[in-house]
């Protein structure tokens, strides 16, 4: 149903790109580069896909006539994705961003067939000479949240509404707790898994039960603003997720972790235009401007602001690592020795909680 309209736009865009390529015969340098985007959700989800589309528009605005972008939204992971990616590749696009983990295998198959087209796969692990992989260090934002929580929480207990137990979510919980404990060594994080990315009612229920059980700060790793809204209603503080949720918690929101793909999209697209693009695998964070924090809310005290800014500059400068030992697990066993850190490969498989996490 709703796929119909974007597909039409997509076809029209493809035709325009082809026309552009044909016209470019006379003035080669002026021919715009066709850039395709494949989204898993609707661009109106105000979350993951929305942020990718914001970056697409910003990239188009920055590069102007040099590019011509097309996007296809709500693409199901699976055979549908391969068809869409192939259509984009054969429709004259020179660069295609596939923005969900489930697009990795379809993109790989199409990449083999179109060696001249460049592919950029968001989250995943496979690369080819013409297919690069990029991901975001979401957990770096959690470190800043943790530093603020350690200062601001009077109870020393945070409530964490978590989605699905995968390493990315566990990493966030651990990074947050460790950062808060640097300020308040007795800091505890209570975690409730709702086993869904999206169920506003359940997210609100989980938030309420965490507040009732003594948490005075809420974190969320779910997609709707329900947790923020509940925090506002109950007069506690909270951190937002994926986009700026300040509208739902003008008093409650301390800050929010936001995805900003714009710098990466501009850089990589430029490289394709210049012919300097190379494959690779990157895990981008605060330093690259890909992880961004929403402006601090009224609940952030001066001490918390100072601590948060210090952590932020430490993470950017590389002098601070979120997972520096000694780190103990829930049972108190030392998992990371003093001054050691967790290497990236192990971090991407993280499946244990640090001491102080109650889950």
């Amino acid at each position: 149903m709703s796929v119909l309209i974007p597909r039409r736009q997509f076809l029209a865009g493809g035709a325009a790109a082809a026309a552009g390529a044909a016209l470019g015969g006379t003035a080669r340098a002026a021919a715009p580069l066709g850039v395709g985007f494949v989204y898993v959700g609707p661009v109106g989800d105000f979350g993951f896909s929305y942020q990718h589309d914001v970056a697409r528009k910003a990239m188009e605005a920055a590069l102007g006539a040099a590019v011509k972008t097309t996007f296809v939204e709500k693409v199901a992971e699976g055979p549908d994705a391969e068809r869409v990616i192939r259509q984009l590749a054969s429709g004259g696009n020179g660069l295609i961003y596939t923005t969900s983990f489930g697009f990795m295998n379809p993109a790989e198959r199409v990449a083999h067939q179109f060696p001249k087209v460049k592919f950029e796969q968001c989250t995943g692990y496979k690369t080819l000479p013409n297919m690069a992989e990029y991901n975001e260090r979401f957990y770096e934002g959690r470190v800043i949240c943790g530093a603020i929580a350690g200062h601001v929480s009077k109870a020393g207990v945070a409530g964490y509404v978590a989605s699905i137990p995968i390493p990315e979510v566990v990493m966030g919980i651990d990074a947050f707790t460790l950062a808060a404990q640097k300020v308040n060594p007795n800091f505890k994080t209570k975690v409730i898994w709702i086993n869904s990315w999206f169920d506003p009612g359940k997210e609100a229920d989980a938030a309420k039960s965490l507040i009732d059980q003594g948490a005075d700060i809420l974190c969320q790793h779910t997609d709707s603003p329900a947790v923020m809204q509940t925090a506002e209603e109950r007069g506690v503080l909270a951190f937002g997720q994926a986009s700026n949720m300040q509208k739902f918690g003008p008093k409650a929101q301390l800050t929010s972790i936001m995805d900003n793909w714009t710098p990466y999209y501009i850089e990589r697209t430029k490289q394709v235009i210049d012919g300097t693009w190379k494959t690779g695998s990157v895990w981008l964070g605060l330093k690259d401007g890909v992880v961004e924090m929403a402006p601090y809310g009224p609940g952030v005290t001066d001490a918390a602001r100072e601590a948060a800014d210090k952590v932020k500059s430490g993470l950017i400068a590389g002098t601070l690592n979120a997972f520096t030992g000694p780190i103990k697990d829930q049972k108190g066993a030392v998992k990371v020795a003093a001054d050691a850190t967790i290497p990236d490969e192990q971090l991407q498989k993280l499946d244990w909680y640090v001491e102080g996490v109650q889950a």
Partner: protein
Amino acid sequence: MTLSILVPLLVSVITAATPLLLAALGELVVERAGVLNLGLEGMMLVGAICAFATMSLTGNPVLGMLAGAGAGAAMAGLFGVLVLTLASNQVATGLALTLFGIGLSALIGTGFVGHPIPVLPKLAVPGLSGLPVVGPLLFSHDALVYFSIAATAGVGWFLKHSRAGLILRGVGEADSSAHSIGHDVIRIRYCAVLFGGAMAGLGGAYLSLAYTPMWVEGMTAGRGWIALALVVFAAWRPWRALAGAYLFGGVAVLQLYLQGSGLVVVPTQVLAMLPYIATILVLTLISSGSMRSRLSAPACLGKPFRPVG
């Protein structure tokens, strides 16, 4: 568990149960009239977005609730034309109504994502709302919570004690007999279906106005299907539907509280399954042996009726 935790927990249960109860009560009447409408999820979603949009544009919660109920009834009217007038297959049409509702609500809601609205006001009872324990539990809810309880009593009375309720049940148990003694089966079923739609729309309105005052695509997250199971769970009786809704809401909320308290050793996924295991268990119990004949479904449930002669 201390009182300070128990009271908010019970308040959360009431919130979680209300949308289920509203939708289940409507469907119960529809099924008692012999019609199976599987489109609850779709009607709830359209009710949710229309209530939200109206509230957002006018700022009037009463208009919002009316819009939710009206939108649910409009969806049900469409269903009625298809299955009652045109005698199409009820299961297939109901499923189609759900899919249609998901798409339609997303389309209407395009401009309303990310808009906050004020929460539905709580109707405080002077003097009583301030009481400890009883105050927050009984006397400080919004209008829809009280309405859902009143509606349970109303539907219970209607089905059991009113003449119209007797006729409605007659239509659901033996449509040809009701027709042959002069009752307009189709018209009665239309009324039931429209009532069911309005109640589902209100259930959706509760989600977008009171539970989590916001609009996001697919925000019912399967509650329509739970309400549908509740009707069977309640063996088509309104007060049992109320008990069932509170039980379902209770188990769902309790598992979250248990996780937060750190007392559980079972995986969270097992806890999340509990409400559904409870349904299957009750279904097995009530459909076995001697209970079966007393609690069976309306005889004409899901069968199309074509008036002859």
